[in-house]
């Protein structure tokens, strides 16, 4: 009896092995992206960066978080410097460590990791308002890493050290949260240092669950839908396709595909909305830092990447069709 059971289990494992191999080591399903242009280099002059950490695109312009310089820089798609937004400091309208960015309703939203707030500017650079304060209470932040904005102006914030994602009204009033405040977890709906968030056109919420090495997805009503990243998306990191090693940014492309900055693997990975691996691309770093830290996708399919190691911005494109 015992031997028969063991035999059945062994047969089952052997039969399932090719299936799991397909799921955990997927093939490349799309053509590779090509690096079209890059600009920057280390420095504090206009057009140079000291640790770029966030990126967003809108209306033919690229907005870049220039973290150690405490500013946002704006460029055209060819890398020509256009203007600076914000400057280093702690007062409202000033920036500590700007991280992932969002652009919505004609405004720029900056997750300020050091000042524990979301700073809002016009796209021309005029300071509009600050949302949130330091703390662990509803509507407060402990190092916000990324922000997304819904159609009605509601905010979704990756609240890094509070181990949660908060949903807030446009004026900062708390609506709800995912995750348990201040406690990491690896089960569905729990986080380990969430770094960024993005919204699909239908309001689906994608969370870069940073140190859990996975993406988690929630329906517009807040219910958990799915997760992906390595075997069972249970914080098993690795260099393989569809696996991650610290997820630092997530963006939704114009066709609903999901682009993920896979920082320690120095690449951006592209998935379908359901989490099916499509392709990956990135630049090899000089080290010891890593390259792909933030990603944004333009309406023409161009993918913009903040290269942390090289202090540069990169523009990638797929030769045979967009995302």
């Amino acid at each position, binding site marked *: 009896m015992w031997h028969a059971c063991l035999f059945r289990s062994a047969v089952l494992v052997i039969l399932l092995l090719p299936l799991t191999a397909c799921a955990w080591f997927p093939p490349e399903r799309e053509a590779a992206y090509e690096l079209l242009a890059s600009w920057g280099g280390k420095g504090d002059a206009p057009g140079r960066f000291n*640790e770029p*950490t966030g990126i967003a695109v809108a209306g033919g312009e690229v907005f870049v978080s220039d*973290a150690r310089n405490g500013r946002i820089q704006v460029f055209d798609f060819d890398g020509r410097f256009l203007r600076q937004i914000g400057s280093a400091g702690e007062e409202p309208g000033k920036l*500590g*460590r700007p*991280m992932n960015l969002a652009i919505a309703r004609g405004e720029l939203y900056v997750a300020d*990791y*050091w000042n524990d707030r979301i700073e809002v500017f016009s796209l021309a650079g005029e300071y509009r308002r600050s949302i949130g304060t330091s703390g662990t209470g509803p509507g407060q932040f402990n*190092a916000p*890493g990324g922000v997304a904005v819904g159609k009605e102006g509601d905010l979704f914030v990756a609240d*890094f*050290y509070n181990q949660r994602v908060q949903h807030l009204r446009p004026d900062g009033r708390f609506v709800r949260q995912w995750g348990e405040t201040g406690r990491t977890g690896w089960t569905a709906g729990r986080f380990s*240092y969430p*770094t960024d968030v993005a919204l699909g056109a239908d309001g689906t919420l994608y969370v870069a669950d*940073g140190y859990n090495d996975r993406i988690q997805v929630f329906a517009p009503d807040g219910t958990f839908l799915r997760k992906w990243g390595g075997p069972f998306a249970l914080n098993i990191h690795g260099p393989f396709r569809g696996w991650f090693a*610290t997820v*630092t940014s997530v963006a939704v492309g114009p066709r609903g595909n999901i682009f993920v900055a896979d*920082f*320690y693997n120095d690449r951006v990975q592209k998935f379908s909305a359901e989490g099916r691996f499509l392709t990956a691309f990135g630049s090899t770093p000089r080290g*010891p*830092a*890593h390259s792909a*830290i933030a990603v944004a996708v333009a309406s023409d399919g161009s993918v913009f990447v903040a290269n*942390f190691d090289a202090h540069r911005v990169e523009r990638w494109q797929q030769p045979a069709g967009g995302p």
Partner: protein
Amino acid sequence: MKTRTFLLAMFMLAASSVVMGDGMQYELRVDGLACPFCAYGIEKKLKKTTGVKTVAFDLEAGKVIVTTEESARFTEDEMERLIEEAGFTLRGMTERELP
């Protein structure tokens, strides 16, 4: 009277230099510094700590270099707690007085 005042001033100056002392430099070995979410978190935590003057990173060596103001001193346990609150583990610490 003038001599007494001068001697008192000299004594206070000498005493203040003993109390003030020089700052310290601590080298903290911490894993995972290559990620700015980690490094900025440690930097933020340490810069808000009374007595900390500067925080710098040596990514190649995986070290955080902290200098302190005047007489501020930290034990390894205190540094370990600060690093833990930033979400990381202190692997080791060396210290020296600044010249």
